[in-house]
Every structure is written in C-alpha cells, then in structure tokens.
C-alpha cells in the first residue's frame, strides 16, 4: 500500500513538475539557415545530382530557391526544396507540394505552388497564339529579359496557382508551358537535326516557395552551355534558368 502511494505521489509530482520544467525549444529542423537575400539569381548548366544512389531513376533536379542550391533526391519528402525539374528530360517543373498526387513531393510537408504568366499580346511577337507554336526560331533573346522584368507582382486572380507541373507548351495537352517541343522539326523543314528539340519561350513562372516567399522564374535553356539555336547534337539535362525571390514576404517581384 505504501508503494502504491509512492507511485501516486510520483505521478502527481511528475504532472506538476512538468509544467515548471519546460522543455528546451527544439533546434531548427532542416536547413542551416543559409537563405539568400532578395534579389535576382542565375543558375547555369544545372546538372544532375551526382551523389544520387539510384542509377535507374530519372535524373531529377530538386532545387531550393530559398537557398539557391540543389537538394538531393533523398530529401524529396521534406520542405528543403521548392521546385523540381522532373520527368522526361526534366521538362516538368513541379512545385514542392505534398498533397499533390503524382507530384515528386507527394507525402511530404511541401506547400509550394506554381503558375505561369501568359500575355498573348506579348506572345504574338514570337508566337502563333492560335496554333500554339513559335513563328520562328530561335526566339529573340531580348524578349526573355523583357518578359522577366515585366512581371512585377503576383497576380493570383489572373494566374491562379496550381500544384501540378508547368511543362511543354500545348504538347499533348491544352496547357500553356515554358517551352515548345518541336517534335517533327516543322520549323526547320528538311533539317533532321532540328526535330525533337525543345526551345524555351520567354514565359515567366511565379512560385510560392514552401516557406511562403514569392519568386519568379524563367527557363533559359535545357541544353548544355545554353546554345542560342539548339539541335539534336546538343546535350539536354543541363538547365539554365534565372529567378528572382522576394524575401520580405510581399508580392513585389519588381526586383533588380
């Protein structure tokens, strides 16, 4: 009986004491706090994560816009990355969203979302807006800079965020994308080296990172060394892109 009393006291004491003995705050999970400042960043020739262990899978490129660095695939179910260049030749840009079935981030905590800004009037300078293909290639590089700068804010009503990918423009789908896949080489008839080539278009994607910051991103090239006029001889899987991220929590994307 005495022992029972002792246990009772212990438990009561434990219950009482746990209030005073507050546990230490958990140390910050994940990143080492190396987030970038608000600004514009350019990533050139982003290649596969060479430490990947599963050789059979696609070479997916997981990227943290917050820290401007590659994240290993082993961390795909964490909040450490914001976008991934995924799928056949990395043509799908998925945001890190753990609730999206079919997304590489599925099952994880990710809350990122993505959208693509489409301005048909601007597009008409280089693009047939009814047939959804470029009028001529290569597309004037000045248009890329103009398009990027012209996105100054997040227009969520006009371009609602989605959790699926932004991919090849109107390729077997009705969706606007970031790049045109010239399957037959129709834009360069008679030149066999120009079929099955992906040309990036001056389209800007807007991303809300996992941590909730807004960024704009534009693909420049998927071929090594960013050739102006790619052909089948160029090596894909080396992504060049630029992005601007706003770290003050606002939707202001007018960043120099």
């Amino acid at each position, binding site marked *: 009986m005495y022992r029972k009393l002792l246990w009772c006291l212990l438990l009561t004491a434990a219950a009482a004491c746990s209030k005073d003995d507050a*546990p*230490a705050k958990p*140390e910050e999970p*994940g990143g080492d706090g190396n987030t970038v400042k608000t600004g514009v960043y350019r990533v050139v020739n982003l290649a596969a994560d060479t430490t990947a262990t599963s050789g059979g899978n696609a070479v997916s490129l997981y990227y943290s816009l917050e820290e401007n660095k590659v994240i290993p695939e082993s961390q*795909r*179910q964490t909040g450490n990355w914001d976008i991934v260049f995924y799928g056949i030749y990395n043509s799908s840009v998925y945001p890190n969203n753990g609730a999206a079935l079919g997304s590489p981030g599925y099952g994880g905590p990710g809350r990122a979302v993505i959208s693509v800004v489409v301005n048909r009037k601007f597009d008409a300078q280089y693009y047939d807006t009814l047939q959804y293909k470029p009028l001529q290639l290569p597309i004037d590089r000045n248009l890329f800079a103009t398009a990027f700068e012209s996105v100054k804010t997040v227009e969520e009503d006009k371009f609602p965020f989605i959790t699926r990918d932004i991919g090849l423009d109107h390729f077997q789908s009705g969706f606007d994308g970031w790049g045109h896949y010239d399957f037959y080489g129709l834009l360069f008839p008679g030149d066999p080296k120009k079929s099955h080539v992906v040309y990036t278009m001056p389209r800007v994607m807007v991303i809300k990172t996992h941590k909730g910051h807004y960024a704009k991103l534009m693909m420049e090239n998927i071929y090594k060394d960013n050739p102006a006029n790619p052909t089948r001889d160029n090596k894909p899987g080396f992504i060049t892109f630029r992005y601007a991220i706003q770290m003050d929590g606002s939707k202001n994307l007018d960043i120099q």
Partner: protein
Amino acid sequence: MQLYLRQFAAALFILAFAACTKTETIDPAPEAQNRIITYSIVNVQGDPISGAVNDRDSSITIYIPFYRQLVVLEPEITVPEGATVTPVSGTLIEDLLDVFRNGRDIKYTVTAKDGSKRTYTLRIVVQQPDLVLDELSTATDIAEFTIDTRLAYDAIHIKLTGSGFMEENELMKMVLVDETGRELSPIGLSTTNVGNIHLIIGSITKFTDPQEPVLQELKTGLYKIKVYSYGKNATTKFPVKINKL
C-alpha cells in the same frame, strides 16, 4: 450500539490519522535531465506523427502507416532545458526503404546539463497489410520462362498476383533469388498495373546493348521470386525455371 461505536472509532481514527500524523512529504525522484521529452515526425501534411518515448528501456517507437508512402523521415526532438541530443533534432533519416530492407542502427544520445548521458534506440514499426504472393509453381509443376538473347528483342514477364502490393512502383522491388540464396539485380516493374495492390508484373528485357544488369547475371536455372513491398517482403515458396538462350 457496537456498530455506532465502531464507526465513531473509525471516524476518530481517520481524523486522528489525518490531523495528528506528521505528514512526511516524500520528494519524487528528480526527473532525468538526460531524457527525450517528445519525438515526432514532421515532414508530413497535417499533424505530425508522434512517437512513443519509453524511458524504462530507453527506446523510441514510431509507427509509420504504409499509405503515407514516406521514404524519408524528419524527426523533431525536444529535450529538457540545457540538454542536447545527437543527432540533433531535424537530422533526416534518409532512404527508409533501405532501413526496412537492410536494417539500420538509429540511436539518439541525450547529454544533460550535468553531463550525464542516455542513449535511446529508435524502433520503426511499419503498419501495412500482409504481403502475400500467389505461387507460380507447385511442388511438382515448375513454371517455365524462356528469354532468347539471340533475338533482337525478347522479354519475359513475371506476373504475380497476391495482396499487399504498393500503389507506387518506387516503393517496391522484385528480385530473383538463385539456388544459393543470392539475390540478382532488380527486375523492372511494369507500369500497366500501377495502382493495383493485387498484381505486380516484372519484366526482363533483351533489347539494346548494354543489357540490363539482371539479364547479364541471369543463367539458366531455378529461381525463387522475392518481392519487397514498402516495409515488408515475401518470397515464393516454389521456384520457377528460367531458360536463357
């Protein structure tokens, strides 16, 4: 009268006991300063998965449901003020499939303010239905497959019914086990039936060079089929015969 007296005596006794006895307060044993207070898995949608911390045997048990399809875990650990834990809170447990298949020693050492240490061992318990493989062969009737590498293109398809397969091929692995018990390289899984938890189809293909690893390792002989499905695995009781021409 006796009863009344008895009750009165009892009441007096109780009062006396309560009033006159010196109450000795026994201090509870001080809480260990080198303990883990909470352990949760936070890289999930919605509520974190709470682990059960057991101070008696210094263990932490977490229950991972298969349908979350987790392949990495991010633990958040709280310890008493002034204490530290190694590995630190947030250190990822990567490649969960490898943990399930090959085991891994995962321990956490808490160092209290006063320097005393305690080490906890992590137990991961996967909650998933049983993995059951329907046999392709019987004791007397061995199923046979042939792949002819002299052809430009040939393939064999190993179609296993059963239950407990995963909806995502990435969470599974199918291998041949030779007569010495050695596992060959994994067999490619068909995407035809992705989503079907009662069927899995593996294909060994001869096509272009270089040939895939399992085909290079393959010799004519008897093989059992082993399937790894998330946290479980199962092997067919009877082998199949594979002829490699």
